[in-house]
């Protein structure tokens, strides 16, 4: 068994993504507490344990914020509740670290 009872988490009030703490189905409605403030999001994609989902609209080219820090930028427009990963974001520090398991 992976994960605990808490479904998802936003690690820092500056973040525009949350983290799934268990496998979550598309359509799941999450009520997340971000430093006392409630943020609600309905998932548009299934989100695997530990993966990221957007909690706000993120336009293509905008920064992806996690831990209160920039972890990359959006390469597509991302709607609230969508999966955020290699298909729609890229790290800024080292050009193109993109590889898929062959």
């Amino acid at each position, binding site marked *: 068994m*992976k994960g605990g009872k808490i479904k998802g988490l936003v690690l820092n009030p500056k973040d525009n993504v949350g*983290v799934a703490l268990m496998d979550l189905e598309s359509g799941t409605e999450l009520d997340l507490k971000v430093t006392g403030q409630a943020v609600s999001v309905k998932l548009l994609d299934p989100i695997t344990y*530990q993966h990221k989902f957007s909690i706000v609209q993120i336009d293509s080219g905008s920064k992806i914020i996690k831990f209160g820090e920039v972890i990359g930028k959006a390469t597509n427009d991302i709607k609230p509740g969508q999966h955020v990963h290699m298909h729609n974001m890229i790290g800024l520090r080292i*050009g193109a670290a993109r*590889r*898929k398991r062959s």
Partner: protein
Amino acid sequence: MEFLGYPRKDGLAGTRNYIGVISTVSCSSDPANWIAREIRDCVPFTHRVACGLVPSDEEMVCRTLINLGKNPNLAGVLVVSPDCADSDPSRIANGIAESGKPVDVCKIHQEGGAMTAVSKGVNIVRKMASDASRIKREPMPVSKLRHGVECGGSTPISGPVTNAAQGAALDFVIENGGSGGFSETPEVIGAEHVIAARAVNAKVKQKMLKVVQDYEQWLKGFGVDFFGANPDHQNIEDGLSSMEEKALGAIFKGGTKPLTEVVGYGEVPEGKGMFFVDTPGNDLKSLAGLAAAGCNIITYSTECAAPYGFPFVPVIKITARRDHFKKLPDILDYLVDIDRAITDIRRVGKELFKLMLEVASGRKTQSELIGYVYACDLWTLFPSTL
């Protein structure tokens, strides 16, 4: 707050009381292993570094072996070497002897061959082990703990959960007057500004930024795309999308205290507080760097359940994966509950800190119990010229 440790002549405290058999070069590994296996409480440190090193690498290997030998968990050391080796075994032995512990040298060719060298070596370490067995554990303040923090097999959860748990335990060590730190320079790339911002002064801040910059330049110098390999396949499958994201998770293990010192590979931080050791991300090379830095206890968060420990420093292995913890009882030592970590990381850190005090006082880790501790490696920046 105290633990039961072994007093050393240089004022440090051992959490273990081993005799170390240190091989200076890859080709003396076999006799070093043969000597160590004959005597209980005797452990080998062998590695794969050969002769023909450029001078800067030779210097780095020498100082690393010296400071590994000086680690307070070793009560005595035998240095084993062939006569033809580049690194000077007498220099290494003399360096270790500054700590006041008994040190001897066994040169394979001078003893009339491997078997006579092993026979002589066994008798030397037998005598050392006999003397060391008279040293008793005594109450020691936490200020004599030096806590090394390691991670391997990062996932998006390891940052805020298991790395944060280690960081919180490190905070307790430091709050109680001890020292400790982390390493793995390439895994800081993308988050160095966050850790540098915690530096106690501009000099330390610049050094932190410089070791990361130098590492990046070193990798780029090979002319291949190393950065396409980080995050790796497993990291990506687990949900890490960029180097920055991985690095920001990795630095959770450094806790929340100010960064007091940045030291090179094989060097020993002088003071108290939280330090950084410049090492590669390879865990065996990084563990050797932490042990050379004087760490007498190590915690290691590993979501891939890395199986090894270290020959003479206890390594407490931590996971947030309940399935691994149940399935791999002889590999993992401590399970971090995700919900508890998220709601109260200080409480989890304190629990881990208490386990560290028990282990520092003699409770054995899983890797020590099964002896899964002998794979070792050292860092060199350049290939051998031979």
